[in-house]
């Protein structure tokens, strides 16, 4: 097929016909939008951080009435209230307090917890690992299980096949997705501790103690995510490039693993960012059910005990984890599908 060609039209990049100018232009500038995208993404993180820190600072300022009195208790003598005011730094001008707050964040000196009487930073560093472990194991399991199940049911029920399976799938996942993590936790405690004494239901002892909290946290979001993945895989399976792949006649493992999965993951990850963030918040409830030694138990106590320095630090901690998850999702998207960056640019 080589040799003299009657082709006269050049289609080097940049000279494509007007109808296809967009992708060609993008390819010529491929480095540029990528940098722009990363810069913008980084700027977004910085602004979010700033907002997060400012809001957690303002949490105390916005408490109706006198926060120092609220913290010390209604019946406290005036001297105790003044002492608490100094302890909380509320006697200084607002702007000084705000700057001190930032300085504290960078130096790791977030003040002392009022109820626990130890530095806030020690509470965070001591308890954060347990929360992070729980959250990340549950997020990973939810993603993997949802993608596998969703793809499987998508493949089974594509183009209107197997109505029975489809209706069974949609009903079961709809019910499971409604079950909140604290209910799932209670049901699991009932099943595994009250009915059969199979798994530990409190504390963080060995690998077995992770099973129930992780399931409780992951099961609802997994069901919701599985529904999304199935819907997405049905969309992907309708695409022309899947027909192309099928015309090449390959094993179904290769078809689904190589040709469907990458396209599925991009759309799924884009949608699932919020769901995964919700799981981080869910740890608070799950930890309180399973007596998990993370930050979730502390946050409720500190709110009820009006331990403001600790609350501020915990709010920033959870916010950071959520931002981190969003960042990881975005980076995964860039790696999976280079178009994402270009579309956003």
């Amino acid at each position, binding site marked *: 097929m080589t040799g003299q060609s009657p*082709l006269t039209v050049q*289609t080097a990049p940049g000279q494509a016909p007007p109808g296809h100018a967009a*992708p060609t232009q993008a390819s010529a500038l491929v480095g540029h939008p990528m940098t722009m995208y990363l810069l913008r993404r980084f700027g977004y993180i910085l*602004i979010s951080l700033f907002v997060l820190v400012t809001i957690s600072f303002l949490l105390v300022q916005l408490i109706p009435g006198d926060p120092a009195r609220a913290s010390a208790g209604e019946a406290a003598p005036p001297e105790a209230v003044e002492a608490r005011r100094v302890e909380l730094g509320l006697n200084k001008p607002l702007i000084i307090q705000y700057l001190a707050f930032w300085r504290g964040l960078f130096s790791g000196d977030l003040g002392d917890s009022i109820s626990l009487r130890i530095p806030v930073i020690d509470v965070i560093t001591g308890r954060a690992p347990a929360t992070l472990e729980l959250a990340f194991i549950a997020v990973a399991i939810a993603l993997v299980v949802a993608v596998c199940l969703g793809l499987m049911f998508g493949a089974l029920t594509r183009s209107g096949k197997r109505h029975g399976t489809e209706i069974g799938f949609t009903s079961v996942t709809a019910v499971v997705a409604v079950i909140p993590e*604290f209910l799932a936790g209670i049901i699991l405690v009932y099943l595994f*501790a009250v009915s059969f004494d199979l798994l530990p239901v409190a504390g963080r002892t060995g690998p077995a103690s992770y099973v129930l909290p992780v399931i409780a946290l992951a099961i609802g979001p997994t069901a919701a995510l599985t529904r999304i993945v199935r819907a997405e895989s049905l969309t992907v399976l309708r695409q022309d490039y899947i027909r192309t792949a099928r015309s090449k006649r390959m094993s179904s493992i290769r078809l689904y693993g190589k040709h469907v999965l*990458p*396209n599925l993951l991009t759309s799924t990850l884009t949608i699932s960012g919020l769901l995964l963030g919700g799981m981080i918040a869910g740890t608070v409830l799950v930890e309180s*059910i399973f007596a998990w030694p993370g930050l979730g138990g502390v946050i409720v106590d500190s709110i009820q005990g009006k331990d403001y320095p600790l609350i501020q630090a915990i709010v920033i901690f959870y916010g950071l984890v*959520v931002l981190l998850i969003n960042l990881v999702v975005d980076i995964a998207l860039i790696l999976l599908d280079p178009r994402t960056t270009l579309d956003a640019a």
Partner: protein
Amino acid sequence: MTTSRRLIASLRTPLGMLALLACAALLFLVVLGPVIWGTSAAATDTSKIATGASPEHPFGTDGSGRDILLRTLVAARLSVTMALAATAVGVSVGIVVGLLPFILGGRFGQWIVAGINIGVAFPGLLLAISFSVILGQSGLAATLAIAIAMVPSYGRLTHNLGASVWGRDFISAAHVLGVPVWKTVLRHVLPNVRDPLIVNAAVTSGNALVSFAGLSFLGLGIQVPHYDWGRMLSEGMSRIFVNPAAALVPGIAIILAGLTFVLLGEVLGAALGTGTRGSVIAKFRRRQKAREAVLESPASSTLSLSEDAVYSVRNLRVSASGHHGEPNDLVKGVSFDIGRGEIVGIVGESGSGKSLTLMSLAGLIESPLYVSADSAHFDGQDLTIRADGHPARLDRHFGEKLAMVFQDPMASLNPALHVGGQVAETGLLHLGLSRAQARDRAIERLEDVRIPDARRRYGQYPHEFSGGMRQRAMIAAGLMGSPSLILADEPTTALDVTVQAEILTLLRQINADVGTSIVFVSHDIAVVTSLCTRVLVMYRGHLVENISAEALRAGHAEHPYTRALLATVPTMSTPRDVPLPSIPDGTDFLAEADQQEPSDAECAPGPEVSSTTNSVSGTPAASAPIFEEESR
């Protein structure tokens, strides 16, 4: 009108009934629950503190000896009204916040959008917990906290929906007429985004109910002596080893109430036409209509196959299940041969079955469509499916000998994979090449189809290719093996005229150099007559004409539809002062052909006559369905 009719229609499905029933039950509990059971739920039975099930207390009692079931029923009012109140506040504020950027516009509007985007990143429960720091711990504070936490996501939803309407013509018209922006937003934007907002409000209420229970469960919501389901849950949790029902009964209440709101959302979504993806209601409706397709046994008239043809089919049918269960034939028994080295065009209007014919040749028809034929051969292989199914060697045969080019090159390459890998894939799959060999051959093939700088292009993604280059890459992928047939489904329709010419030249060149046969489907009879050696004309699922391109150009078409089709092609000498001819609407060319002299009937089968295009005669072959796509 139509909306209320659709609402009634979706309420008449089983799920609709269930939703109606569940909502009625919930409403009953909320309004009358405390009135009926209020006093008996508060009654303490000191003889039965934290006991299990008994005749007086079917689910046992709590720590103060109060009946769990009655308390759960009474708690419905507080749990549901608090959730609805939070939703009402959150949704209203969210809608205002979402619409404000349109009204304010400019920099301030952008700031609001940015604020919404940052707020959305943080999960609602976390926001609610944070706000309960400020608001304190009470039912009202929790309601407000949940409402505030709802604002960013609802604001974003409103803003996204509004943005999709904002660019439309009637908005621009309102601008031109000088309507104030806030009026435009209220009168034109809001009504157009109303339906999805209502549907989402139902779903949001369910979430609010669960979040509220969560806050109460943590001790940040309803405080004693009042109680809601979340509060009961946390009280029951502490005694789960004594009486599990104390925790499970309010838990089940939360699930049922949550499902009620989800169902309500589904029904509203179906009624308002904003059905969420994979709406269950929509499926029920489709299910009622669709019936199992009954595959008609193929007609008996058959002809023996031509020996030297690359592809030959007899009585090929593609059927779909009709509305009332009877199979609806889309391709009604066509027979033809593709000779070696031929370029055969299939023309016809949209819906004539030409693309379906091509897809069934490639074995790419999937259920709910079914393919059958009396016989089919491709390059020496019998394609009839036996009881043991689809032999693996056929996959290999198709992979090596058949190449395909599709209509839209923008969509037919996988956007997430390198172009080169997709070109090389056939080599790995069917030709037994190593990764490196496949790569080298793919680069060679890319050069053959004149992709400049093929080695670099190999590692690029489809979005870095122009439309014409993608189509050539598709052709290159087909050339990895030694194809004896290229099936091209309108390969130039989506391309510019100059690029079209390139692709046609390339196809012609492959045909001339290697002798690969080509089937070229197009609705453009002008392109087909210039490229092809033979033309098949399809009309309403029938093959009405099988004629050499030369005879066609010479005006020897016999079927009236072919002649009508030819007459629509403008030439340089077409008079400019008369309208261009078109295919007359409502003409049944099949009936017209039947009325003409018998010589036409040979090429124009009526419903009873099988298409006998190649006048070869012989004994009927065994009728069996061919290559129904196996379910992978």
